[in-house]
Protein backbone atom coordinates (compact mmCIF):
# COMPACT_ATOMS: atom_id res chain seq x y z
CA UNK A 1 0.00 0.00 0.00
CA UNK A 2 1.68 3.19 -1.10
CA UNK A 3 -0.75 5.93 -0.02
CA UNK A 4 0.93 6.92 3.24
CA UNK A 5 -0.99 10.06 4.25
CA UNK A 6 -4.10 11.94 3.13
CA UNK A 7 -5.65 15.12 4.43
CA UNK A 8 -7.09 18.53 3.68
CA UNK A 9 -5.93 22.05 4.36
CA UNK A 10 -6.96 25.65 3.67
CA UNK A 11 -5.38 27.97 1.10
CA UNK A 12 -6.82 31.46 1.64
CA UNK A 13 -4.26 34.02 0.41
CA UNK A 14 -4.82 36.08 3.58
CA UNK A 15 -2.93 33.40 5.53
CA UNK A 16 0.34 34.67 4.06
CA UNK A 17 -0.72 38.16 2.87
CA UNK A 18 -1.95 39.57 6.18
CA UNK A 19 -1.17 37.18 9.07
CA UNK A 20 -0.49 40.15 11.38
CA UNK A 21 -4.15 41.15 11.16
CA UNK A 22 -5.36 37.80 12.56
CA UNK A 23 -5.92 36.99 16.23
CA UNK A 24 -2.38 35.91 17.30
CA UNK A 25 -3.67 32.89 19.18
CA UNK A 26 -5.69 31.62 16.23
CA UNK A 27 -2.77 32.25 13.90
CA UNK A 28 -0.41 30.32 16.16
CA UNK A 29 -2.90 27.46 16.25
CA UNK A 30 -3.20 27.41 12.49
CA UNK A 31 0.57 27.47 12.05
CA UNK A 32 0.94 24.66 14.60
CA UNK A 33 -1.64 22.55 12.75
CA UNK A 34 0.07 23.12 9.40
CA UNK A 35 3.29 22.05 11.09
CA UNK A 36 1.62 18.97 12.50
CA UNK A 37 0.44 18.04 9.02
CA UNK A 38 3.91 18.67 7.59
CA UNK A 39 5.40 16.42 10.27
CA UNK A 40 2.84 13.69 9.62
CA UNK A 41 3.65 13.73 5.91
CA UNK A 42 7.37 13.50 6.67
CA UNK A 43 6.94 10.83 9.34
CA UNK A 44 4.91 8.77 6.88
CA UNK A 45 7.97 8.74 4.64
CA UNK A 46 6.17 10.41 1.74
CA UNK A 47 8.40 10.78 -1.31
CA UNK A 48 5.89 12.70 -3.42
CA UNK A 49 2.97 14.97 -2.55
CA UNK A 50 -0.08 14.91 -4.81
CA UNK A 51 -1.97 18.18 -4.27
CA UNK A 52 -5.62 18.28 -5.34
CA UNK A 53 -6.50 21.91 -5.76
CA UNK A 54 -8.93 24.24 -7.42
CA UNK A 55 -6.92 26.82 -9.27
CA UNK A 56 -8.34 30.27 -9.85
CA UNK A 57 -7.98 30.89 -13.62
CA UNK A 58 -4.19 30.93 -13.36
CA UNK A 59 -3.56 28.09 -15.83
CA UNK A 60 -6.93 27.03 -17.12
CA UNK A 61 -9.46 29.20 -18.88
CA UNK A 62 -12.72 28.74 -20.73
CA UNK A 63 -10.79 28.34 -24.00
CA UNK A 64 -9.90 24.79 -22.89
CA UNK A 65 -11.35 24.10 -19.47
CA UNK A 66 -10.46 20.71 -18.03
CA UNK A 67 -12.89 18.91 -15.76
CA UNK A 68 -9.83 17.21 -14.24
CA UNK A 69 -6.16 17.86 -14.91
CA UNK A 70 -2.81 16.52 -13.68
CA UNK A 71 0.65 18.03 -14.10
CA UNK A 72 3.39 16.01 -15.82
CA UNK A 73 6.16 18.61 -15.75
CA UNK A 74 9.72 18.24 -14.47
CA UNK A 75 9.24 21.37 -12.39
CA UNK A 76 6.72 24.08 -11.62
CA UNK A 77 7.00 27.83 -11.10
CA UNK A 78 5.38 29.22 -7.95
CA UNK A 79 3.61 31.52 -7.28
CA UNK A 80 1.97 33.05 -10.34
CA UNK A 81 0.85 35.96 -8.16
CA UNK A 82 3.29 38.71 -7.26
CA UNK A 83 5.41 37.07 -4.53
CA UNK A 84 5.77 40.41 -2.76
CA UNK A 85 1.98 40.57 -2.43
CA UNK A 86 1.42 36.90 -1.58
CA UNK A 87 4.47 36.95 0.71
CA UNK A 88 5.68 33.52 -0.29
CA UNK A 89 9.01 33.03 -2.05
CA UNK A 90 9.28 32.77 -5.83
CA UNK A 91 10.54 29.22 -6.30
CA UNK A 92 10.88 26.39 -8.77
CA UNK A 93 9.28 23.29 -7.31
CA UNK A 94 10.33 19.81 -8.46
CA UNK A 95 7.72 17.64 -10.17
CA UNK A 96 7.74 13.90 -10.64
CA UNK A 97 7.05 13.44 -14.38
CA UNK A 98 7.64 9.73 -14.51
CA UNK A 99 5.28 9.08 -11.60
CA UNK A 100 2.73 11.48 -13.12
CA UNK A 101 2.80 9.44 -16.32
CA UNK A 102 2.33 6.15 -14.51
CA UNK A 103 -0.55 7.51 -12.42
CA UNK A 104 -2.24 9.09 -15.45
CA UNK A 105 -1.95 5.84 -17.40
CA UNK A 106 -3.94 4.19 -14.63
CA UNK A 107 -6.41 7.05 -14.08
CA UNK A 108 -7.39 7.13 -17.76
CA UNK A 109 -8.98 3.71 -17.36
CA UNK A 110 -11.89 5.30 -15.48
CA UNK A 111 -11.57 9.11 -15.52
CA UNK A 112 -10.91 11.29 -18.55
CA UNK A 113 -8.28 13.53 -17.03
CA UNK A 114 -6.44 16.19 -19.03
CA UNK A 115 -2.69 16.48 -18.49
CA UNK A 116 -0.37 19.44 -18.58
CA UNK A 117 3.33 19.88 -19.19
CA UNK A 118 3.23 23.44 -17.80
CA UNK A 119 1.60 24.69 -14.63
CA UNK A 120 2.18 27.85 -12.63
CA UNK A 121 1.06 27.31 -9.06
CA UNK A 122 -1.32 29.94 -7.73
CA UNK A 123 -2.13 30.64 -4.07
CA UNK A 124 -4.28 27.49 -3.97
CA UNK A 125 -1.04 25.50 -3.97
CA UNK A 126 1.56 28.10 -3.05
CA UNK A 127 0.03 29.04 0.33
CA UNK A 128 -0.25 25.49 1.74
CA UNK A 129 3.11 24.42 0.28
CA UNK A 130 4.71 27.34 2.08
CA UNK A 131 3.84 25.48 5.31
CA UNK A 132 3.84 21.83 4.24
CA UNK A 133 7.09 21.78 2.23
CA UNK A 134 8.87 24.94 3.40
CA UNK A 135 12.13 23.88 1.76
CA UNK A 136 10.37 23.18 -1.56
CA UNK A 137 12.35 19.99 -2.04
CA UNK A 138 9.49 17.49 -1.96
CA UNK A 139 8.34 16.66 -5.51
CA UNK A 140 4.76 17.84 -6.10
CA UNK A 141 2.18 16.53 -8.56
CA UNK A 142 -0.63 19.07 -9.00
CA UNK A 143 -4.16 17.91 -9.72
CA UNK A 144 -6.98 20.27 -10.60
CA UNK A 145 -10.74 19.91 -10.41
CA UNK A 146 -12.95 22.49 -12.11
CA UNK A 147 -14.55 24.22 -9.12
CA UNK A 148 -14.72 27.69 -10.70
CA UNK A 149 -16.19 27.78 -14.19
CA UNK A 150 -19.67 26.26 -14.64
CA UNK A 151 -20.51 23.61 -15.56
CA UNK A 152 -18.42 22.54 -12.55
CA UNK A 153 -17.19 18.97 -12.19
CA UNK A 154 -20.09 16.88 -10.81
CA UNK A 155 -19.50 15.81 -7.19
CA UNK A 156 -19.80 12.10 -7.98
CA UNK A 157 -17.06 12.46 -10.60
CA UNK A 158 -14.79 14.16 -8.03
CA UNK A 159 -15.49 11.10 -5.87
CA UNK A 160 -14.64 8.83 -8.84
CA UNK A 161 -11.34 10.67 -9.33
CA UNK A 162 -10.50 10.06 -5.66
CA UNK A 163 -11.19 6.34 -6.01
CA UNK A 164 -9.08 6.21 -9.19
CA UNK A 165 -6.26 8.14 -7.55
CA UNK A 166 -6.15 5.72 -4.63
CA UNK A 167 -6.03 2.72 -6.94
CA UNK A 168 -3.30 4.31 -9.07
CA UNK A 169 -1.24 5.43 -6.08
CA UNK A 170 -1.48 2.02 -4.43
CA UNK A 171 -0.13 0.46 -7.63
CA UNK A 172 3.15 2.41 -7.63
CA UNK A 173 6.15 1.63 -5.41
CA UNK A 174 6.60 5.25 -4.27
CA UNK A 175 5.23 6.45 -0.95
CA UNK A 176 2.68 9.14 -1.79
CA UNK A 177 0.85 11.74 0.31
CA UNK A 178 -2.40 13.24 -0.95
CA UNK A 179 -3.71 16.64 0.16
CA UNK A 180 -6.76 18.63 -0.89
CA UNK A 181 -6.99 22.37 -0.41
CA UNK A 182 -10.01 24.63 -0.03
CA UNK A 183 -13.74 24.14 0.14
CA UNK A 184 -15.20 25.74 3.24
CA UNK A 185 -17.68 28.58 2.79
CA UNK A 186 -16.32 31.77 1.30
CA UNK A 187 -17.38 34.52 -1.05
CA UNK A 188 -14.05 35.48 -2.64
CA UNK A 189 -13.63 38.76 -4.53
CA UNK A 190 -17.33 39.69 -4.34
CA UNK A 191 -19.31 42.23 -2.31
CA UNK A 192 -20.03 39.43 0.18
CA UNK A 193 -16.32 38.76 0.70
CA UNK A 194 -15.61 38.07 4.38
CA UNK A 195 -18.88 36.26 5.05
CA UNK A 196 -18.44 32.88 6.78
CA UNK A 197 -21.14 30.23 7.27
CA UNK A 198 -19.70 28.46 10.30
CA UNK A 199 -22.54 25.98 10.81
CA UNK A 200 -22.39 24.92 7.18
CA UNK A 201 -18.60 24.49 7.44
CA UNK A 202 -18.98 22.32 10.57
CA UNK A 203 -21.38 19.98 8.85
CA UNK A 204 -19.21 19.73 5.72
CA UNK A 205 -15.99 18.99 7.59
CA UNK A 206 -17.76 16.41 9.74
CA UNK A 207 -19.06 14.68 6.60
CA UNK A 208 -15.58 14.75 5.09
CA UNK A 209 -13.88 13.35 8.18
CA UNK A 210 -16.42 10.53 8.42
CA UNK A 211 -16.48 10.05 4.62
CA UNK A 212 -20.28 10.19 4.50
CA UNK A 213 -20.46 9.61 0.77
CA UNK A 214 -24.23 9.92 0.35
CA UNK A 215 -24.36 13.23 2.19
CA UNK A 216 -21.28 14.61 0.42
CA UNK A 217 -22.62 13.77 -3.02
CA UNK A 218 -26.03 15.24 -2.22
CA UNK A 219 -24.96 18.90 -2.23
CA UNK A 220 -26.78 20.84 -4.95
CA UNK A 221 -25.03 23.43 -7.10
CA UNK A 222 -27.29 26.42 -6.48
CA UNK A 223 -27.95 25.75 -2.79
CA UNK A 224 -24.22 25.26 -2.14
CA UNK A 225 -23.55 28.56 -3.85
CA UNK A 226 -26.14 30.30 -1.66
CA UNK A 227 -25.03 28.63 1.58
CA UNK A 228 -21.28 28.58 1.03
CA UNK A 229 -20.53 31.17 -1.63
CA UNK A 230 -18.69 30.71 -4.91
CA UNK A 231 -15.68 29.42 -2.94
CA UNK A 232 -17.64 26.45 -1.59
CA UNK A 233 -17.38 24.86 -5.03
CA UNK A 234 -13.87 23.93 -3.94
CA UNK A 235 -15.40 21.22 -1.73
CA UNK A 236 -14.79 19.01 -4.79
CA UNK A 237 -11.10 18.78 -3.91
CA UNK A 238 -11.78 17.45 -0.41
CA UNK A 239 -14.57 15.15 -1.59
CA UNK A 240 -12.03 13.68 -4.00
CA UNK A 241 -9.43 13.05 -1.29
CA UNK A 242 -12.06 11.74 1.14
CA UNK A 243 -13.07 9.19 -1.51
CA UNK A 244 -9.46 8.10 -1.83
CA UNK A 245 -9.55 6.88 1.79
CA UNK A 246 -13.24 6.22 2.38
CA UNK A 247 -12.45 3.34 4.74
CA UNK A 248 -10.89 5.43 7.50
CA UNK A 249 -12.30 8.06 9.85
CA UNK A 250 -10.22 11.22 9.83
CA UNK A 251 -9.29 13.75 12.48
CA UNK A 252 -9.65 17.51 12.62
CA UNK A 253 -6.37 19.19 13.55
CA UNK A 254 -7.65 22.74 13.29
CA UNK A 255 -11.06 24.31 12.65
CA UNK A 256 -11.51 28.01 13.27
CA UNK A 257 -13.15 30.85 11.40
CA UNK A 258 -10.56 33.59 10.90
CA UNK A 259 -12.52 36.59 9.60
CA UNK A 260 -9.51 38.48 8.23
CA UNK A 261 -8.74 35.41 6.09
CA UNK A 262 -12.40 35.47 4.98
CA UNK A 263 -13.00 31.78 5.63
CA UNK A 264 -12.98 29.02 8.19
CA UNK A 265 -9.43 27.65 8.30
CA UNK A 266 -9.30 23.88 8.41
CA UNK A 267 -6.48 21.36 8.67
CA UNK A 268 -7.51 17.72 8.89
CA UNK A 269 -6.07 14.27 8.55
CA UNK A 270 -8.16 11.90 6.41
CA UNK A 271 -5.82 8.92 6.41
CA UNK A 272 -2.62 7.96 8.17
CA UNK A 273 -0.85 4.94 6.63
Amino acid sequence: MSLVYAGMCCHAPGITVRPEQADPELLAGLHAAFDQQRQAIEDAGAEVLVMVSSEHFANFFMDNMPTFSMGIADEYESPIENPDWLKVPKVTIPGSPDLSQRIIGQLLETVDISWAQEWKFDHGLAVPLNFLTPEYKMPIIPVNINCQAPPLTPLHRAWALGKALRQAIDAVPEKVALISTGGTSHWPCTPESGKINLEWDKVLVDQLIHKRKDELLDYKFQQTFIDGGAGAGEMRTSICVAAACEETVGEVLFFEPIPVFATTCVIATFFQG
Partner: protein
Amino acid sequence: MSVYYVQKLMYNLNRDPDLRERFDKDREDVLSLYKLTDEELEALTKPDIGLLYVMGVNGQILMHYAAIFNMPWAEYLRVMEEGLEKHGPVRSGLYVMSESNEK
Protein backbone atom coordinates in the same frame (compact mmCIF):
# COMPACT_ATOMS: atom_id res chain seq x y z
CA MET B 1 -20.50 34.19 -24.80
CA SER B 2 -20.99 37.21 -22.62
CA VAL B 3 -17.83 38.86 -21.32
CA TYR B 4 -15.71 35.97 -22.62
CA TYR B 5 -13.07 38.14 -24.23
CA VAL B 6 -13.12 40.60 -21.32
CA GLN B 7 -12.11 37.73 -19.08
CA LYS B 8 -9.67 36.36 -21.64
CA LEU B 9 -7.84 39.69 -21.68
CA MET B 10 -7.61 39.68 -17.87
CA TYR B 11 -6.47 36.06 -17.85
CA ASN B 12 -3.76 36.80 -20.42
CA LEU B 13 -2.58 39.94 -18.59
CA ASN B 14 -2.18 37.83 -15.48
CA ARG B 15 -0.04 35.20 -17.20
CA ASP B 16 1.94 37.07 -19.83
CA PRO B 17 4.48 39.64 -18.57
CA ASP B 18 5.12 40.91 -22.13
CA LEU B 19 1.44 41.62 -22.71
CA ARG B 20 1.24 43.26 -19.31
CA GLU B 21 4.15 45.56 -20.16
CA ARG B 22 2.53 46.42 -23.49
CA PHE B 23 -0.75 47.10 -21.66
CA ASP B 24 0.96 49.45 -19.21
CA LYS B 25 2.49 51.38 -22.12
CA ASP B 26 -0.51 51.48 -24.44
CA ARG B 27 -3.79 50.18 -23.04
CA GLU B 28 -5.82 50.91 -26.18
CA ASP B 29 -3.38 48.97 -28.33
CA VAL B 30 -3.81 45.81 -26.23
CA LEU B 31 -7.58 46.24 -25.93
CA SER B 32 -7.80 46.41 -29.74
CA LEU B 33 -6.59 42.78 -29.89
CA TYR B 34 -9.83 41.49 -28.33
CA LYS B 35 -13.38 41.22 -29.66
CA LEU B 36 -15.17 43.61 -27.31
CA THR B 37 -18.49 45.43 -27.33
CA ASP B 38 -18.43 49.21 -26.91
CA GLU B 39 -19.68 48.86 -23.34
CA GLU B 40 -16.98 46.29 -22.53
CA LEU B 41 -14.29 48.44 -24.10
CA GLU B 42 -15.38 51.48 -22.12
CA ALA B 43 -15.60 49.57 -18.84
CA LEU B 44 -12.12 48.13 -19.38
CA THR B 45 -10.59 51.45 -20.41
CA LYS B 46 -11.90 53.53 -17.52
CA PRO B 47 -11.67 51.01 -15.71
CA ASP B 48 -15.19 50.63 -14.29
CA ILE B 49 -14.69 47.62 -12.01
CA GLY B 50 -18.26 47.85 -10.70
CA LEU B 51 -19.70 47.64 -14.20
CA LEU B 52 -17.38 44.76 -15.10
CA TYR B 53 -18.68 42.92 -12.03
CA VAL B 54 -22.27 43.60 -13.06
CA MET B 55 -21.51 42.39 -16.58
CA GLY B 56 -20.57 39.02 -15.09
CA VAL B 57 -16.78 38.95 -14.83
CA ASN B 58 -15.66 36.35 -12.27
CA GLY B 59 -14.19 37.98 -9.15
CA GLN B 60 -11.18 35.68 -9.22
CA ILE B 61 -10.24 37.26 -12.56
CA LEU B 62 -11.58 40.78 -11.92
CA MET B 63 -9.50 41.14 -8.74
CA HIS B 64 -6.30 40.83 -10.76
CA TYR B 65 -7.45 43.51 -13.19
CA ALA B 66 -8.23 45.85 -10.30
CA ALA B 67 -4.77 45.13 -8.88
CA ILE B 68 -3.15 46.32 -12.12
CA PHE B 69 -4.55 49.76 -11.30
CA ASN B 70 -3.34 49.47 -7.69
CA MET B 71 -6.88 49.54 -6.42
CA PRO B 72 -6.91 48.89 -2.67
CA TRP B 73 -9.00 45.91 -1.51
CA ALA B 74 -11.55 48.04 0.36
CA GLU B 75 -12.00 50.21 -2.72
CA TYR B 76 -12.43 47.08 -4.87
CA LEU B 77 -15.26 45.88 -2.62
CA ARG B 78 -16.83 49.35 -2.56
CA VAL B 79 -16.91 49.84 -6.33
CA MET B 80 -18.62 46.45 -6.77
CA GLU B 81 -21.39 47.62 -4.44
CA GLU B 82 -21.57 50.89 -6.37
CA GLY B 83 -21.76 48.96 -9.62
CA LEU B 84 -24.76 47.02 -8.34
CA GLU B 85 -26.51 50.26 -7.29
CA LYS B 86 -25.77 52.08 -10.51
CA HIS B 87 -26.07 49.35 -13.13
CA GLY B 88 -28.48 46.92 -11.50
CA PRO B 89 -28.06 43.22 -10.69
CA VAL B 90 -25.33 41.01 -12.15
CA ARG B 91 -26.29 40.09 -15.70
CA SER B 92 -24.45 36.83 -16.36
CA GLY B 93 -22.15 34.25 -14.81
CA LEU B 94 -22.10 32.73 -11.36
CA TYR B 95 -23.12 35.76 -9.37
CA VAL B 96 -26.61 36.02 -10.80
CA MET B 97 -27.33 33.41 -8.09
CA SER B 98 -25.86 35.44 -5.21
CA GLU B 99 -27.92 36.99 -2.45
CA SER B 100 -26.48 40.49 -2.77
CA ASN B 101 -27.66 40.38 -6.37
CA GLU B 102 -31.27 40.08 -5.26
CA LYS B 103 -31.27 43.13 -3.03
